[in-house]
């Protein structure tokens, strides 16, 4: 375990999704020192778990991994993964940030990423990187292209059999490791804590939590990813190759009744993208998107939508009233059409994807007295002057922490937060 971590930095970045990574690179490339705090065991955020990204259909890994590598190898960037930020305090000359490095129960300096411990471990558990669809061991490297390539032993799943320690060629397993709290001093902070998707149970009429073949959009991303849990697109109830797949748009957005009245901005496009990928993976599959408005507003997005229509993906203007299932666990979707008549219809599919809305991932904001909007996203202090600024001097925000947005918009905000942090330090400290 490292004990000589520098306790001081120019800019501390909370979160290492694409917003945090890009901000870190922009700041460090300009000559300042950056420390990234990431609570997960790997940097990369949600983006590294995606399949391909719209509208270019580049593989998400291929775009994220170079940024992750650039951050990991950057002489001015220090990353602390598997580390929680507890509190951030404003001081006279910047911020004091209390963090706790969680124990991986391995010696991080000695580990050679050989995975022998993972192979030897006898305990199989749900894999949270696969959003519950895959399986991992109680000790495992989080995913193929994780950075750093270090395994985590999950204490609550460990049966203490000693198998991992016996096979480790460098004797790095340390069952007695403790969390390490410390305080880091930073001149400025960029918060890029990202988002969560709304819970699958948020709309009881969709039964997202009980029906096995009703999955979330992030689970669908994993089904389509080259390293996905099954290696093929299969439905989770029985491994059947689905012939008929439906997307329910605005499954928890634009809905005052559940407290998410806003548009989540990305769901139309990711549904179209997933539909196109499914059409490629399942040439016999029928893919339907039930939607209210298709919001293809970004550069190249409308053309992408047109391409999807020409590929034969069914776009149906309809609201989904409820979802149930038949004896074979096929989901039945009840729709109210906008076009072609008003009688509700029940349509059976093999698999249904709920395009869940986007919620902020933090509620407390580390004890900071930061101005949030009514939905819990951080409010910009001067949106029409320099949008990354907040009511706290020296604290800047980037990405979905400010509200739902796609990857290109997030990357633009990351640059915006970076220049504000750089100039703040230059002028004030």
């Amino acid at each position, binding site marked *: 375990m490292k004990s000589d971590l520098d306790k001081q930095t120019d800019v501390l970045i909370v979160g290492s999704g694409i917003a945090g990574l890009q901000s870190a690179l922009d*700041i460090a490339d300009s000559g300042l020192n950056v420390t990234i705090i990431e609570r997960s065991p790997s940097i990369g955020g949600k983006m590294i778990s995606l399949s391909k990204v719209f509208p270019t259909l580049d593989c998400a890994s291929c775009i994220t991994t170079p940024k992750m590598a650039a951050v990991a190898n950057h002489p001015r960037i220090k990353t602390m993964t598997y580390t929680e930020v507890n509190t951030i305090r404003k001081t006279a000359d910047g911020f004091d940030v209390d963090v706790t490095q969680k124990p991986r129960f391995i010696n991080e300096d000695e580990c050679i990423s050989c995975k022998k411990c993972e192979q030897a471990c006898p305990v199989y558990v749900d894999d949270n990187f696969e959003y519950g669809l895959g399986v991992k061991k109680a000790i495992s490297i989080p995913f193929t292209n994780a950075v750093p390539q270090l395994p985590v032993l999950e204490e609550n799943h460990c049966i203490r059999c000693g198998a991992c320690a016996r096979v480790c060629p460098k004797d790095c397993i340390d069952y007695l490791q403790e969390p390490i709290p410390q305080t880091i001093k930073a001149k400025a902070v960029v918060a890029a804590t990202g988002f969560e998707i709304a819970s699958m149970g948020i709309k009881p009429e969709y039964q997202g939590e009980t029906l096995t073949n009703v999955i979330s959009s992030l689970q669908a991303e994993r089904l389509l990813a080259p390293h996905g849990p099954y290696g093929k697109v299969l439905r989770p109830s029985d491994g059947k190759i689905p012939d008929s797949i439906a997307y329910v748009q605005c499954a928890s957005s634009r809905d005052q009744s559940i407290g998410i009245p806003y548009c989540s901005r990305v769901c139309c496009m990711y549904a179209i993208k997933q539909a196109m990928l499914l059409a490629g993976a399942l040439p016999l599959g029928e893919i339907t998107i039930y939607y209210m408005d298709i919001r293809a*507003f970004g550069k190249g997005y409308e053309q992408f939508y047109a391409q999807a229509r020409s590929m034969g993906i069914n776009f149906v203007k309809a609201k989904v009233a409820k979802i149930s299932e038949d004896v074979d666990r096929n989901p039945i979707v009840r729709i109210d059409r906008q076009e072609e008549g008003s009688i509700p219809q029940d349509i059976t599919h093999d698999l249904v994807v709920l395009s869940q809305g986007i919620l902020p991932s933090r509620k407390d904001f580390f004890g900071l007295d930061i101005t949030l909007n009514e939905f819990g996203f951080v409010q910009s202090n001067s949106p029409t002057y320099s949008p990354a600024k907040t009511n706290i001097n020296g604290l800047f925000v980037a990405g979905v922490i400010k*509200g739902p947005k796609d990857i*290109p918009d997030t*990357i*633009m905000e990351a*640059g915006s937060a970076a220049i504000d942090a750089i100039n703040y330090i230059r002028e004030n400290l």
Partner: protein
Amino acid sequence: MSLLNTVESAEPKKIAVYVCHCGGNISDIIDVKKVAQTLSQYPQVSIATEYAFMCSSNGQDMVINDITNQGVNRVVIAACSPALHETTFRNALKRAGLNIYLYEHVNIREQASWVHKQDKDGATHKAIALIKAGVEKIIRQDALDEIKIIANQRVAIVGGGIAGMRAALSCARAGLKVSLFEKRSTLGGNLNRESLIYPTNQTAQSVVDQLGSEVKNNPNIDLLLNAKIVSVNGFAGSFQINFIDLDSKEQTIGSGVIILATGFDHYKPYEGEYAYKTSPFIVTLPDFTKILDQSAQPKALLYEGKTIKNIAFIHCVGSRQMDGVDTPLEGKNLNEYCSRVCCTSAIFTINNLKIKYPNTGIFDIYSDMRTYGLEHESLYEKASKNDVLFIRRPLEERPQIEQRPDGTFNVTSTDVLSWNEQIEANVDMVVLVTGMVPSDISDLVDNMKLPRSTDGFLQEVHLKLRPVELANKGIYIAGTSQGPMDVIETLNAANTAGVKAVSLLSLPEILMDPFIAVVDDDKCTGCGLCISECSYDGALTMTDKIVNGKTKKVAQVNGALCVGCGACVAVCQPRAIQVAGWTLDQFEAMVDAIAKE
């Protein structure tokens, strides 16, 4: 400027080979002792050894020690993937005082031991062949140094709208000098108007004024109004911008970076498109916001002497155009793209109209309502509550406008929301919700050879990897010159262009990888085949040079522009041009070594 980056070493080559066990990960499959033993017999290898963990500090010390005490000047390490430890060993070489490029990393874990578990002999054999190939490569390797270009610490920004102003301020605050070029006599571009903007409800002018006054007062910013760019030369770190100033004099300013913030124009419908120009009561959305601003009548909107009771708004005019349905402007492509801001802009304007004149009847004809932002959806909600009658047309149908004898209009459209009923609205005015088109910068595009997408907007290298960079290094784009954006998105984009400029100019010199094309003047025959293969304008040119006392035509590489792709290498018969560090001779020797084994 000298970009010569290879240093011929006179010393005899002394190669050390290290084979890592990786704690069994390699040595359980590959017979590392046999590998080291075989390599020790190989020509020019003076040390060949194996060790449990090469990446450990003991392993690194072993390498450093052999360099300092044994005179080793070329290193081959066979271990895991270079992705994991190439940097580790380069740093070790640096500590030992050896050029970091005199080291070759051979991957015998991810690409040998881990994938050939069932075939230990085969894996061992493969490792030997790969390491021999590595030795052959490093024998032919020269020390390389990073390329340095002295960088002019000035940023030239083209366009004085909010994007240009924001980028200028961000660069100036970071200590760079800025030349801000604006072709008009005022700053602010399209936002130079009094109407309100969403979602903050400020006047557009106040946004312009706040940025504008700071720009004018910042000592690092040279403001050049009424300036017209004539031509641009040079490359990242050293551009020359030739322009005509307000006194019609031609001038030149040097800069290290260029930011293009040339903005957009409002789409102008052609005569007859949605009945445009057939009546003064068919107006575009930007026209309408002005009419609304200027109307001082208390109860109802008064325009051209007529009281306006009912208005139809038609979305997607000049945007989301479809082949076979829409007709493009003369000489232009169809605008297939969505203009992003117009739905919200229209709804915002309707809400403001409803505040001023609550009794106005409004029909809003759209196809998809794209009020995508956090606050935008609530504007749409509000409009729904404001008795706006929304008519949703099918994607490929267009509403019909017919003028009646009394001067009013019948607007008819299929309405999806009422199960495809035909709706006829009688209105006094029709507002065409027009989108954005790129401003006409064709002179600049031609002169600078700027990439544009089919939309006509400037084309970034990659929407996610390099979103504000053009293929031409050192030239960035900010705001709506790239595509439709609202005010906030524009400011973010401008700041991002700003931070790229600041990082590129963060040091007095721009450092670049040494892996670029180099020409052996003796071998070059001046045939010029390489020039046509090069995709990077100006990276490779023909020049007259004195070689061995005689003037001859040879290829010349501009290290600032070459990216080292090697396209030129393939066509050079005499092998005069090579990519430093990755030469064809090296690869041929590697393949020979593999084939022979």
